[in-house]
């Protein structure tokens, strides 16, 4: 039996499974944005968007777009009943003050000590695309990362002993969801919590630069 990697929507759906009702959640750009599509409507999860939206809902029908309502990716959204608006400083009170139960970010790499690199692939491009990632990374109660386990090009592992790209924040990741597995961050490094069907520990370790641990 060979393993079947998840596609990007599959990673998002896998994350959605682990979000309980009542959590207050910020979703980064990329794979994380898709997470909300997989949370059933009757499970109340409140999504926060950095631009001051509390209770972000799905995209509107094209004929019902409100030009004054976008998310942090500047996509048109709706507001859930019970949602509200705050200004940017108050929005980052939420993000930086420990009020998010969860933030899900995309990343280039995660290290076994919880370091995350998600904003630049090299120092010389580093000063350009920060956005709100550094604020979210240090501020949420839990930081989960959604990314492919290996790079598209050379198949190098994004699961690292030490990040090779510029850091977004140090020691903050609590869980990593990839197309192959779910990894926790334990005091001694990556702890495998789940693997896709057909995956073996040896094959997963083979695709991980850092040492993996099993319970």
């Amino acid at each position, binding site marked *: 039996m060979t393993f079947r990697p998840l596609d990007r929507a599959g990673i998002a759906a896998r994350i959605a499974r682990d979000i309980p*009702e*009542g959590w*207050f959640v910020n979703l980064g750009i990329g794979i994380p944005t898709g997470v909300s599509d997989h949370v059933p409507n009757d499970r*109340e999860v*409140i999504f*926060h968007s950095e631009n001051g939206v*509390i*209770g972000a809902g799905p995209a509107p029908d094209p004929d019902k777009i409100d030009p004054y309502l976008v998310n942090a990716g500047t996509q048109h959204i709706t*507001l859930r*009943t*019970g*949602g*509200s*608006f*705050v200004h940017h400083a108050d929005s*980052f*009170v*939420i993000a*930086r*003050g*420990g*009020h998010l139960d969860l933030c899900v970010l995309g990343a280039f790499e995660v290290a076994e000590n919880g370091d995350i690199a998600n904003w630049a692939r090299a120092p010389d491009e580093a000063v350009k695309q920060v956005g709100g990632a550094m604020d979210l990374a*240090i*501020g949420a109660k839990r930081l989960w990362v959604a990314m492919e386990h290996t790079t598209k090009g050379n198949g190098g592992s994004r699961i690292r002993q030490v990040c090779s790209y510029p850091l977004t924040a140090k020691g903050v990741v609590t869980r990593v969801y990839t197309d192959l597995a779910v990894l926790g961050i334990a005091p001694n490094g990556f702890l495998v919590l789940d693997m896709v069907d057909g995956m073996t520990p040896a094959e997963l370790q083979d695709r991980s630069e850092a040492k993996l641990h099993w319970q």
Partner: protein
Amino acid sequence: MIDKFVPDVPAALAGIADGAVILMAGFGNGIPETLVKGLVAQGARNLTLVANSGGRDTGPTADILATGQVDKLICSFVRPDSTAGRLFAAGKLELEIVPQGTLAERLRAAGAGIQAFYTPTGADTLLAEGRETRVINGRNCLLEFPLRGDVALIDAWEADRWGNLTHRASARNFNPVMAMAAALTVVQTRHIVPLGDIPPANVHTPGVFVHRVVHVPE
């Protein structure tokens, strides 16, 4: 379904431990009086109470101070001729006096994840003695640290089941600021409203800062 309503005051205050730091909102009005009475009944001791003032001889602050439950009071002023003033004079109450704006800002900093800030307020005064200062742009500033609560006791006018709140007129005062600054934020509300009833642009305290709500009609 998210539902932050609890049936009664004891449920609202369940689990408040001895030694807790209690943020009590209010300034002339907007005081969570029923919750404070409940805390007297609940009986937690060795508390630190954070409030705008030390109150008078009667009223919520005086009432809880008189029980001896509070070891330390952090506030912006204490009348010598008040329960708080007399307890302090008798050596039965520790006091930390914080300028009112610095008090509000330290609470906000706790809510906002700000780890410290510099303010000119109180620099060059007795409150600065022995404290860290720094001259920034020619102004002498005091270094101030966040003031975080274990529990915030909050008054609201309306609340919905997500914990979204409005506050009426000047009864807003410290309520939104303390709500964001505590690990457990407990609200007494005059009115319960259906989810969506408060216009999204006019929520004064978003439910993200609120954990328990108890209905206390007028």
